[in-house]
């Protein structure tokens, strides 16, 4: 079974159509990169999978979005519970103005009272998975905002990992970071792939080529091309894709 699937998905915001009949599927433990020029619908597509578009006035969807074969827009699905199963990392690091420890524990504390011992364990594991543990293990009580930008972004990844999501969404997670922090996060993604399925929006085509297994190219709300990353960049099928990856627009 596919980890996630979009079946003929179209999305409107009021009268503006943002996605046109998009279909794709991704197996578990793979990384999918979404690329395309600004306003092409890649962020809208990403946010379908944790229903973050629900808040945008006039949002409307046709078609089906499935995670593990389950239709997440079915009326019986609770969007809040869905978001606990799908982690999200944003473009700008968004640590809460609490301690490092409390940031990572945030998602755990939203659920029914877990024993503090379990929370401590999970926080430690998440920080290790996010390759941040060695840098913060002696200052877990320090404010998260005292960390550097790159560390803050890894903290946000740890925060998403702590609740053990089944899918992780990342919206340009490195575009606000310096090259060294970016490299660290890319390394981290390769590790995380073993346990998680990841969908990542990126503006950076080299990044897509470096880290992803599959790449989807969007333009003006249409999915132009979708395929294995290595074929995608070496042998694009669609002339628009060729034009984009060779840098002729965007």
């Amino acid at each position: 079974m596919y980890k996630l699937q979009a079946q003929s998905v179209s999305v409107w915001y009021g009268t503006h159509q943002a996605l046109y009949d998009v279909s794709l599927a991704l197996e578990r433990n793979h990384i999918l990169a979404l690329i395309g020029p600004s306003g092409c619908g890649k962020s809208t597509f990403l946010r379908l999978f944790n229903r973050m578009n629900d808040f945008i006035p006039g949002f409307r969807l046709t078609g089906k979005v499935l995670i593990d074969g389950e239709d997440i827009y079915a009326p019986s699905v609770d969007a809040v519970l869905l978001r606990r199963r799908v982690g999200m990392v944003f473009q700008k690091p968004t640590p809460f103005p609490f301690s490092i420890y409390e940031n990572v524990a945030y998602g755990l504390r939203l659920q029914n009272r877990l024993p503090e011992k379990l929370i401590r364990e999970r926080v430690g594991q998440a920080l290790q998975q996010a390759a941040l543990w060695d840098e913060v293990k002696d200052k877990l009580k320090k404010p998260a905002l005292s960390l550097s930008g790159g560390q803050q972004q890894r903290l946000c990844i740890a925060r998403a990992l702590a609740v053990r999501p089944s899918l992780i969404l990342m919206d340009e997670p490195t575009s606000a970071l310096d090259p060294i922090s970016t490299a660290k996060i890319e390394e981290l993604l390769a590790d995380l792939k073993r346990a998680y399925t990841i969908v990542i929006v990126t503006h950076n085509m080299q990044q897509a080529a470096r880290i992803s297994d599959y790449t989807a190219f969007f333009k003006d709300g249409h999915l132009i091309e979708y395929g294995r990353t290595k074929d995608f960049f070496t042998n694009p099928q669609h002339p628009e894709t060729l034009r984009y990856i060779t840098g002729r627009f965007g």
Partner: protein
Amino acid sequence: MPLHLQKRLPKRWGEAILTFLVGAISWSMLVALAGVVGFLVYRGGKVLSWEFLTTPMREGMQAGGIAPPLVGSLWVVTLALLVGALLGTATGAYLSEFSPKGRLHRLIELLVNTLAGIPSVVYGLFGLALFVVALGWGASILSGALTLSLLSLPILIRNAQEAFSGVSPDLKLASIGMGASPAQTFWRITLRLAIPRLITGYVLAMGRLLGETAPILFTVAAYYLPTYPQSPLEPTMMLPYHLYALITSGTNVARTYPMAFGTALVLVGITLLLTTIAAILRFRLKKQLHV
């Protein structure tokens, strides 16, 4: 090619004049404030003493202190603020964080703005009709406090709305993205981060309520009652009305005028104190929350 960095730009006279004018106006504001306080100190400073603050008035207001109106004012205003802060913050939270931004939202906003424009004496009349007469609570601390809390609502609602919408939307979204419900996001992120601005608003509102005279006239303030209230259903003296009484009704102006200025000085002093406390609290809490 030389950069000509040493070349003088043509003088911008318009800008210079504007800067001067704006500066002069702000300084004159400060001078005006200092003038008012200075005048009060000059006319009323000599009656100020520990005894003035802690003892009741004697000889038909011609001697003694202002303890009963001082205590009464603090009672009524504190109670009014408790009620007003609770209702105002809840309404502000609803408008800023929860209400669908449709017709009902615009209607409530319109009502709040209208409330803000109603003269305070009308609030007094409303309090008289509702609390004093219809509900039968008489002229009492309860009636007066509730009337004042209504008066404070528009300010407190606005303040809460601004405090909540001032919290970074990125953080609210991050919390939603973590699987927090809107209510959980409100309690754990939005409210927590809005506290410094909320408290500033409460303290400033308290300062404003302390000086209100018209709404307390018919609802709570006693003309002469040199005792301390034993229950919220009793009337009490209050500072603004006491000031009015001292100025208008004395037969021995030489004795009551300095007391009136002393009373005014106490009122202004409390307000300045509250403003200072608000500034300090805000600064400290902000530092604590790193916002």
